[in-house]
């Protein structure tokens, strides 16, 4: 079996796992889920780093730099805003339930 086939199998399995995982997330947390996945989609930052370091061509470097910049915005902005939201979902203190 070749390498490419393995990658496609991983892709399909991860999709199915994602489906099962996300189905269980309650509607209350759907907005943080979306901003959290925004942050994770910043993973293309890896691709940007690989592009920048693989070439000395200036155009390639500039394109890589822009994509690195954009994906860093995604990573930091996404995780921080998600944290800000989830902080609000803590249980209010000293609330007596009847």
């Amino acid at each position, binding site marked *: 079996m070749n390498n*490419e086939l393995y*990658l496609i199998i*991983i*892709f399909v399995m*991860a999709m199915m796992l*994602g*489906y099962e995982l*996300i*189905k269980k*997330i309650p*509607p*209350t*947390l*759907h*907005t*943080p*889920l*979306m*901003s*959290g*996945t925004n*942050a*994770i*989609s*910043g*993973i*293309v930052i*890896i*691709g940007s*780093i*690989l592009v*920048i*370091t*693989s*070439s*000395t*061509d200036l155009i*390639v*470097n500039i*394109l*890589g*730099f*822009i994509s*690195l*910049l*954009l994906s860093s*915005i*995604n*990573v*930091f*902005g*996404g*995780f921080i805003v998600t*944290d*800000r939201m*989830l902080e*609000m*979902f803590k*249980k*209010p203190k000293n609330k007596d339930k009847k």
Partner: protein
Amino acid sequence: MESTYIIFYFISSILFILGIKMLSSPTTARRGNLISFMGMLLAVTTTLLIVDYNLDSIVFISSGIFVGGVVGLIFAKKVQMTSMPQMVAIFNGLGGLASSLIAFSEIIRSDRTISLNIISISILISILIGSVTFSGSITGFLKLQSLITGKPILLPLRNYLNFILLVSIIGLMVASFFYNEQTLIFYILISSCLLLGILIVLPIGGADMPVVIALLNSYSGIVAAFTGFIFSNIALIISGSLIGASGLILTRIMTKAMNRSLANVILGGFGATKENINDEASDKSYKSGSSDDVASLLEYSENIIIVPGYGLAVAQAQHSIKELLDILIEQGKNVVFAIHPVAGRMPGHMNVLLAESNIDYELLLDLDQVNEKFSQTDVSIIIGANDVVNPAAKLDENSPIYGMPILDVEKSKSIVVLKRSMNPGFAGLDNNIFYNEKTVMFFGDAKNSIDSLTKSFKELI
């Protein structure tokens, strides 16, 4: 050596999976987000260990991460919770653009040759999905931010136009296999994909934006997975697919909650062509009440359900409603909130807005949980919501919202509607609830109305 890195990438994927899994409860969600962040940190560190540096690349990488990080931080700290849909739209767009730039630079790096293998095909797909995600998200953002009209923009023959464009894009992709070393073909390809993204989102009305945002969210994940195919990188493939699946599920939840198909949303034009029979509306009679009337109604009620809609968010009334809620609970009333899946401007938006004002998330019930409660409810208070409580969805086959699941407020003993005026809401539909004999209309800006209601109620007790 290489297998060590694969293990690191694998561990970081596991961290993403755990992080998302912990989002299934509000008590663990925040820790989950931190775990996902650690996964990201591990993936980036691993990559930095693999690659070879020169001075240029060190400068590019460190300055890019630093500047991007600062911009992201400012975005994340400044954004208002009401503007979360816009922020998510922009971030989807950035992800899409980043991926298509990576794909394009891979074309240049490989001396503009495209051959029939998984890498080249992934590059072309990344360019297509990445560019569509970028221009579509920006168009969506402009609509949400009201920088362009939120109403559907309907070009003549638009569906033919999109079809022709899509066929040309596929044609260009096929051509790129035969005409190597032609940069021009890629410029045309990218421009066409960008145009397609704009044309797809333009005809979609503001009320349908949640669906579009969820769908573009999914695209931004799928394109990350294809970027993973370009570099044979499992961290990219796994996390990209997780996001892709997430966006698809959210899209399906939204379309189900509106009883529409995805195709129906994408083909657009909802609410633009419908002519409503509003002439009748003026003849029907309704009761309107003052804050004192509503306050005494609440005084005699035991079980209360509050139905918030986007009007509540527009009026920034989430803190006022918390004040009213506290007083009602203090008086021993049972109060819950009924949250329709399409309340607000993105999935779960209303929950975030109410959480912002410290309302306990356990009081926020979704459609299935709350609908059985209405028959034992003394009073339902509808604040700035219309379509999600419109019985036309059940009764009137000609209504554009026919078949959409709604909150059964009619079953409660009495109904209070907080609304600016008798003008129809966002979808432009009249609502029979307003003319029901159980209903009291309480006109005014949502925030002012709630504040005066709280004041009247305080005077009563």
